[in-house]
């Protein structure tokens, strides 16, 4: 098929939109931490843009999307973008240059490990983080992206639906976050000292950039400009608003105050949950998905608070649980009337769609938990994961980077 200029324009714009989610996330996380750790958490997000962009071009894209080896991983035939040129790849996106698809996917590989940062915030050495990042995108992200999205990937072959990354991005990061929070242990003084967000307007700025960029994430995943992209855009926006509203109301009834951070967190939970479903569901289904995202993620965060594990910025509760709800909801609400390349879900007469959805969810949780643990274990036994206690007390901005966020 010839290159379509409209499709190409939309995919390139979408790639830029997904990129800006990572600095958006940096502000979201930066506002939630204490002021002494602001730069450190933003730096970790920014490092994902630098390092993952590099590895993606060198070998990451090839491992994720390259010629299949046993349904598990791509080989290195496309390393260094060898053969990934300006002609369309018919199997992935028939109307845009192959490199446009490649760079769009690069942005997903950048933000996925960046999401994990919220769980391990305020206590990990930057050197250990960089090694973790390199290993994680190589042996966790690329294989799971291959399973779900690549030609020949075993979860894709099963017929599991994941439009924009509920499993690959959100469950994957949420599972790794849980392992990271538990294995690194609590922040010093956790449960004793107040650990309040230092800049709530930053959190709102970050949420705004995430919401804005997410239109590229979900509507861009149509890989074409037109009806499907529009549908994904509309349900993404709807689910996000409903989830933010749901969290706001539940929190208000539960704690007595309408919380701005709560409204933002709920909106992000909605963005997460609609992600896998965005190319397959109608607007009213997205309302239900949004209500579920607000309610389930709120409950998950309360559960975490009760259990006392220090997932500092609730990556597990929002991305792990939100992503799981989204993947299951895709199996419930998907309909061929929205996307003929998809499938009907449980509520549209095809209960069997739940099986690949559940297998996809379980496989992602299992693989991410195990391999993330192995990576962290190796780093901990060699160079160590955590900063020194006195460094943690002074803050990572000064301790790790010799740059304070607020000097005057």
């Amino acid at each position, binding site marked *: 098929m010839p290159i379509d200029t409209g499709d190409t324009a939309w995919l390139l714009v979408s790639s830029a939109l997904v990129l800006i989610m990572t600095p958006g996330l940096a502000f979201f996380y930066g506002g939630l931490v204490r002021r*002494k750790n602001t730069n450190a958490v933003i730096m970790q997000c920014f490092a994902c843009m630098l390092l993952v962009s590099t590895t993606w071009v060198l070998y990451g894209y090839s491992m994720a999307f390259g010629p299949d080896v046993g349904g598990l991983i791509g080989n290195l035939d496309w390393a260094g973008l060898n053969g990934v040129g300006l002609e369309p790849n018919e199997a992935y996106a028939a109307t845009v240059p192959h490199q446009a698809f490649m760079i769009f996917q690069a942005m997903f590989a950048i933000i996925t490990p960046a999401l994990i940062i919220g769980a391990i915030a305020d206590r990990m050495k930057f050197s250990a983080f960089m090694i973790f990042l390199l290993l994680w995108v190589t042996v966790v992200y690329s294989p799971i992206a291959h399973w779900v999205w690549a030609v020949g990937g075993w979860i894709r072959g099963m017929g599991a639906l994941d439009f924009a990354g509920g499993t690959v991005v959100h469950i994957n990061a949420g599972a790794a976050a849980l392992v990271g929070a538990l294995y690194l242990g609590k922040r010093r*003084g956790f449960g*004793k000292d107040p650990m309040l967000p230092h800049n709530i307007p930053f959190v709102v700025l970050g949420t705004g950039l995430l919401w804005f960029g997410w239109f590229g994430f979900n509507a861009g995943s149509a890989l074409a400009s037109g009806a499907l992209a529009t549908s994904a855009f509309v349900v993404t926006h709807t689910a996000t608003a409903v989830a933010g509203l749901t969290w706001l109301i539940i929190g208000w009834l539960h704690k007595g105050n309408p919380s701005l951070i709560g409204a933002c967190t709920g909106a992000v939970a909605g963005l997460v949950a609609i992600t896998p479903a965005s190319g397959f569901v109608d607007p009213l289904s997205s309302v239900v998905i949004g209500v579920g995202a607000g309610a389930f993620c709120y409950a998950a965060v309360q559960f975490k608070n009760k259990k006392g594990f220090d997932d500092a910025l609730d990556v597990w509760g929002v991305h792990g649980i939100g992503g799981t709800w989204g993947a299951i909801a895709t199996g419930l609400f998907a309909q061929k009337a929205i996307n003929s390349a998809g499938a009907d879900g449980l509520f549209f007469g095809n209960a069997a769609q739940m099986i690949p959805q559940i297998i996809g969810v379980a496989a992602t949780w299992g693989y991410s938990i195990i391999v993330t643990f192995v990576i962290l274990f190796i780093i901990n036994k060699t160079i160590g994961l955590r900063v020194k206690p006195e460094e943690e007390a002074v803050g990572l901005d*000064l301790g790790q980077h*010799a740059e304070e966020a607020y*000097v005057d």
Partner: protein
Amino acid sequence: MLKVEAVIRQEKLNDVKNALTKAGFSGITVYDVKGRGRQKGYVLNFRGREMRVDLISKTKIELIIDDKGLDDVIKIIKENAFTGDIGDGKIFVSPVLDVIRIRTGERGKEAI
């Protein structure tokens, strides 16, 4: 009546405050301050340019106490603000002439 002022490390504030509260000294005023003693500051990097920060961010706490609480307060601050490294800070003690609680008009020890 005495005023106890202490300049301490920012990161020690919670330990000091919690220990004082536990011993019954709950009234406290806290300031963010910058200053220097014999500690010489630290070096920051901006685009590879080194900058010496010689006024260091510290926390100053201030509490008004009855004379007989002084030894306890000093002990608590010393124990909880201590690291052994340069920059642990100092404690200053001075007399207070009178204290007036605005709401009730109480004066002296009653008003502490």
